[in-house]
Each structure stands twice: as C-alpha cells, then as structure tokens.
C-alpha cells in the first residue's frame, strides 16, 4: 500500500516536474530568424501562394529561384510595414489569380467553386428520381392472388415432373 502511494507521488512529481521544465526547453530551441513574428507572417503568406515554376508547390515549400526571390520580396514588404492583403495583391497584379491557392469567387471561377455543389445537387436529383420510380414499381408489384398462386404451383410441378 505504501509502495503504491510512493509510486503515485513519483508519477505526480515527474509530471509536474516535466511541465515546469518545458519553457526552458522551448527557450533552447529559439527560432533562428531575427524577428519571429515577421518570419511567421512570411511563412503564412508564402503558404498561400503558388510557385509558378514548380506549379504544385507553394512559395514556402519551393526552392526554385523565383520562389527564393519572391520570399525575399515578401520579407522586404513585411519590413516596409505592408499589410497581408497588400502583399497578396502585389503577387496577384503580377502573376494573376493563379498564384492564389484559394482563388477568389468570380465569373471565371464559378464552375470551380460551384461545381461540386452542382454535382451534389445533380446526384440528389438522380437519387430522388430513382427512389420514386422504385417505390412505384414496388407498389405496382401486387402479390399473387390465390388463383394465380395455384396456377404457378401447378406449372412448377409440371416442370419438376419433366
């Protein structure tokens, strides 16, 4: 009994001891960037932007020269005190909506945004039509009358005998 209490105390102590030690560990792994807030913004922004050289990577992921240049531009704009929409706009003016991983809703992207919903509605429509037809078919399938059942049985027996 005593040993169990001791074990509990030990677990308790290690748990709190380790949480208390956590901030120290975090301090050791401080980011290399001089301004972590700016670096975080850079990362957020470049994760939203497509690299045009390697089209399925973000500017954050890509090591293409253009991506490196664009990260440098974004960093410069952050330092110059530009807001995020201003920086995104800078990219769109030059490279078009294609740079955005989340393209805006407008005429040309209507199919892109509305397509899945339209397909789902079409699916529901087809499903509903199918279910209605099926219900009708089942309703039309009257069970056999006693007379008909007798005839069917007679026919089956006839086949069995042959």
């Amino acid at each position: 009994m005593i040993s169990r209490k001791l074990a509990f105390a030990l677990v308790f102590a290690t748990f709190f001891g380790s949480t208390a030690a956590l901030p120290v560990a975090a301090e050791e792994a401080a980011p290399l960037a001089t301004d972590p807030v700016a670096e975080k913004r850079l990362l957020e922004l470049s994760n939203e932007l497509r690299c045009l050289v390697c089209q399925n990577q973000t500017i954050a992921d890509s090591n293409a020269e253009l991506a490196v240049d664009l990260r440098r531009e974004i960093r410069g704009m952050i330092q110059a005190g530009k807001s995020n929409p201003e920086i995104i706009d800078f990219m769109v003016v030059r490279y078009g909506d294609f740079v955005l991983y989340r393209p805006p809703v407008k005429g040309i992207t209507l199919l892109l945004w509305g397509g899945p919903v339209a397909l789902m509605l079409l699916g529901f429509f087809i499903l509903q039509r199918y279910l209605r037809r099926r219900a009708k078919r089942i309703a039309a399938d009257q069970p056999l009358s006693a007379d008909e059942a007798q005839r069917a049985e007679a026919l089956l027996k006839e086949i069995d005998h042959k």
Partner: protein
Amino acid sequence: MNRYFWILGAFVALVALLAVGLGLNPRDVPSPLVGKPAPTFTLPVLAAPETTLSPKDMQGKVWLLNVWASWCVSCRQEHPVLVEFSKKVNVPLLGLNYKEVRGDGGFDMSKMPADEEKTLAFQRANQWLSQHGNPYTMTVMDLDGRVGIDYGVYGVPETYVIDKAGVIRMKHTGPITPDVLGQKIMPLLAELNK
C-alpha cells in the same frame, strides 16, 4: 438498353473533357498584365552601362520586350528566330537580360560583391550576343530580377508586345517559334502599327 446508352454517353463526355484538359499547356498561365500599362523601370543599357533606359523612352512606338539570359537554354532555341525578325521587321526589339549571373546557378552569390556581379553580367551578356548575333535594338540589364518580378516573369524566355500608349497587348511565355511569330505576333504588330 437506354440506361447503358446514358452511361456510355457520360463516359465519352468524360474522356472528351480529359482529352481537352490534357491537351492544354499548364505553363500557359494568362498574364494579368495584358491590357495594363507596362511596369516602369530604369535599368542600365548593356551597350552603354552609364546610360539607362525606361519604357517611357519607347512611348509612341510599338515594341517588343524579350526576356533572355545566356544561361537560358530555350533562349538559344528562339534566338535565330529573333535575329531573323530583327533583319526583316522594323519594330524595336528590346532585350531584358534577366539575372545573368545569379540566375545561372553556378555561382556562390553570397561570396560575390555587387560590382563584380555587374562586371561579370555585362561581360557574359556581351559575349553571348557577339557569339550568337544581336537581334536587340537595345538590351537592359536586370541583375537581381526585380523588374522581372514586376513583369510577372516566371520562365525565361518571355516576350511582351507593347503598344504606342505603353500598354502590354500580348505576352508569350516560352521560346518564340516561327509559327508563334507568324501567326500571333506579326498580325498583332501590323494591327497596332496601323
């Protein structure tokens, strides 16, 4: 029977859609700059490094801006077409040399001072033009690629057609082939020069 007909129809439609989609060139990203004024710049001229050129100097003329670099393989492919063009057609063709040194990839830029980069870039560009022929009325040097960014350059070579008012009327990404020149650029130039 009728149902199978529908499924077959849907399948054929899907195949047609995919065939069209696969036929498109994903690198052909429409430039938002078409129809907008050409971004301004002031860059040193290759032939006379003390002087600069800006698009304003071209006002009143229809002109072409071709982005190139000596390290760019596709530029070599289109170069004879440009040389031929410059001999036959009286339309100014300006070269924008894009990141001549740092775009090459063969240099450690962190160890190269700015003036050394500049000297090397001019030297390399001049050498390339004397070797392959110079179709350009003038070439300006964009060493760090900032002007390239303003023009939305993402793959050299790229070519812009700019009208008398300084508005970009067309952008072509990739090497100019005789077909592109004859079917797209020449008719546009004729129309703009009317």
